C-alpha cells in the first residue's frame, strides 16, 4: 500500500496541534505538530524499510526539513529502528537523548557494534557516526542534547500567543547512576564471549516527556517503569511533578501498557480527568494483555491501540516443515503485525479529534 493511501487528509492547520502514534506490533514512533509548522519526532520504527515518520510526513505534505527535534527515549531496539535514516533526512533536527547514556561506558559499548558483532546498539552506532559526520560540516547543532528529569528543552511562543514547552520527566539521578553502572558491566572485555548484548533493564534510562501546548498537555511515557522507589521510575516523576505544572489531555501509555509501568498517581496527578490514551503493542511479550487493557481503560476516557497484540498469520510453509515445527516449538507468533496509527488533533479549546489508520482501533 502506498504511504499516501494509508493516511488521509492534509497536514494540520498552523494553530492545530497533532500527536500521531505509530506501531507495527514491535516498535513505536510518535510524530508531533507543535504549531506553526514545527514538528518533533519521538523514537522511530520502520514501515517497509523506511522510518514511518518520514513516510507519514511525506503523505500529508510536510517537509522533513520542518522537523526541529528528534527524541530517542532509550536504546531498546523497538524504539530506535531507523533513527539514523530519520536524522539524515531531517537536516534541521536536533537530537535529544537520555542523559543516562551520556557516558564513556555507552560510547564504548556502541563502538563494539559492527558487522562482525551484531550487538543491540547498531542503530546508535549509525546515529553517532552520522552526528560525527555532521560535526565535520557544522559543529553547531550536531551535538546531542542530553536530558534528565526536570529539564525544559523547548520553550517558544506560537502565533496564537500560546506557550509551547517540552519537559523531560526522567531519568532521575538515581536512574542515571544505575544505567551507567549497568552499561559499564556490559562492555566486552578481552576473552569475553562475542554475543549480542542485551541489557537487563534498558528501560531504567527511559526519557518520559511532558509537552505543554498552550493549555493542552501531552504525556509521552516512553518505556519508563515503576520500581516502588521514590528516587526512580514513575514514583520519582510523581514525587517531583509539582516542578512541571500542567496535566496531560493525551497520554502515550508507558511501556506498552505493562503492569510494570503502572503507578496509580500517574492517572490522578499527571493526567487531566478526561484524558485519552494510546498504546503500541509489544507482541514479543504479549503486551498489553486483556487485563492491562481493562486496567488502563478504567482510568482514561478512551484507550486506543495502534494494532492488535496478536493474530497475524504466519508464513505458509511446506506441510512437513509445519508438522516438525509444531512438534518442536511452542507459541509461534509473527513478531510484527500490520502497521497502525492513532492520530489526535486538537486546538487550544474544543474536542480532541481521534482518527485510526491501518490496524489501529479503540480497545477500551
Amino acid at each position, binding site marked *: 500500500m502506498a504511504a499516501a493511501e494509508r493516511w488521509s487528509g492534509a497536514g494540520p492547520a498552523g494553530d492545530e496541534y497533532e500527536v500521531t502514534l505509530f506501531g507495527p506490533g514491535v516498535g513505536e514512533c510518535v510524530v508531533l505538530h507543535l504549531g506553526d509548522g514545527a514538528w518533533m519526532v519521538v523514537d522511530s520504527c520502520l514501515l517497509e524499510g523506511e522510518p514511518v515518520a518520514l513516510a507519514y510526513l511525506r503523505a500529508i505534505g510536510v517537509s522533513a526539513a520542518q522537523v526541529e527535534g528528534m527524541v530517542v527515549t532509550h536504546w531498546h531496539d523497538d524504539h530506535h529502528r531507523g533513527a539514523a535514516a530519520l536524522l539524515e533526512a531531517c537536516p534541521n533536527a536536533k537530537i535529544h537523548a537520555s542523559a543516562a547514556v551520556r557516558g564513556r561506558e555507552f560510547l564504548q559499548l556502541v563502538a563494539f557494534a559492527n*558487522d562482525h558483532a551484531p550487538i543491540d546498539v547498531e542503530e546508535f552506532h549509525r546515529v553517532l557516526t552520522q552526528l560525527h559526520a555532521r560535526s565535520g560540516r557544522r559543529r553547531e547543532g550536531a551535538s546531542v542534547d542530553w536530558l534528565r528529569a526536570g529539564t525544559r528543552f523547548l520553550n517558544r511562543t506560537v502565533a496564537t500567543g500560546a506557550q509551547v514547552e517540552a519537559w523531560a520527566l526522567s531519568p532521575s539521578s538515581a536512574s542515571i547512576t544505575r544505567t551507567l553502572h549497568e552499561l559499564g558491566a556490559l562492555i566486552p572485555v578481552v576473552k569475553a564471549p562475542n554475543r549480542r548484548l542485551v541489557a537487563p533493564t534498558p528501560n531504567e534510562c527511559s526519557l518520559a516527556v511532558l509537552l505543554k501546548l498552550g493549555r493542552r498537555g501531552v504525556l509521552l511515557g516512553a518505556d519508563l517503569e515503576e520500581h516502588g522507589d521514590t528516587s526512580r521510575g514513575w514514583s520519582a516523576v510523581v514525587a517531583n511533578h509539582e516542578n512541571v505544572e500542567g496535566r496531560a489531555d493525551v497520554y502515550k501509555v508507558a511501556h506498552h501498557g505493562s503492569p510494570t509501568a503502572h503507578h496509580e498517581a500517574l492517572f490522578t496527578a499527571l493526567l487531566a480527568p478526561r484524558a485519552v490514551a494510546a498504546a503500541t503493542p509489544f507482541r514479543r511479550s504479549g503486551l498489553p494483555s486483556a487485563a492491562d487493557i481493562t486496567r488502563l481503560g478504567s482510568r482514561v476516557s478512551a484507550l486506543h491501540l495502534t494494532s492488535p497484540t496478536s493474530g497475524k498469520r504466519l508464513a505458509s510453509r511446506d506441510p512437513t516443515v509445519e508438522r516438525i515445527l509444531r512438534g518442536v516449538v511452542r507459541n509461534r507468533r509473527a513478531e510484527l503485525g500490520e502497521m497502525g496509527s492513532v492520530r489526535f488533533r486538537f486546538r487550544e479549546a474544543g474536542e480532541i479529534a481521534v482518527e485510526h489508520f491501518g490496524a489501529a482501533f479503540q480497545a477500551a
Partner: protein
Amino acid sequence: MSATALARTTDATALADQGARRPRVWKTAAPPRMTQPSSHPDTRSAGSDSAALEVGGDAPVETPDGVIALRHVLPRINAPATDTFRLLQQFEGTVLEIGQGEFTARLVDRTDPRNPVEVADFSLDDVAVGDRELLAPGAVFYFSVGYRVATWGQRYREATVKFRRLPAWSRRDVEKARAHAESWSWLIEDDGSR
C-alpha cells in the same frame, strides 16, 4: 557477519580446529524429537567426518584396533553406514529471554528471508549439553528442519538447534573499540544548548 562466514565458523572442522568440544550425534530407530548435529546443518553426511565412529548412541562405539587398521587400508569397503540430511527449512535465532524450562527466541527465516520474523518458545532440553554454556540472552543459533535419510532409505523427520560460536573478543578488538569511542567523546563533553 555474513552467512558464509557464519557457516564457516560453525563447521565441525572449524570447531575441532578451535578445540571446541565435539558435539554428540544420536541415531536411533525411533528418531528423537530434536538432535544436536555434528556439523553445519546444511546438507551433510553424518558418516563423512571423523565423528562417524561415535554414531550409535550416547556413548562412543567401542571399535577394536584391528577394525580401525582395516579402515585405513580399505576405507571404502569398511566405511560405516552413512546418513544424509536434507535441509527443508532453516532459521537464524536470537535468544530473547530464558524462563522456567524454556527460552524465547526471535527467528529470522534464512530459507526465505521475505517471510516475517517469528517469535517462538523452545524447551531448554533441546539444547545440547555442549551448547548450554552459550545459552544466554543475545546468543545466536541455527534452527534447522529437514529429513535424515538413512543408508537403507529410511527417512526421519529431524530438527536441530546449534548455537553459534564466535572467537571471543580479542585485545585488538577491545582496543579498537576504545579508540573508536574516544573519537566520539566530544558528543558527551559538548553540552549542546545547555
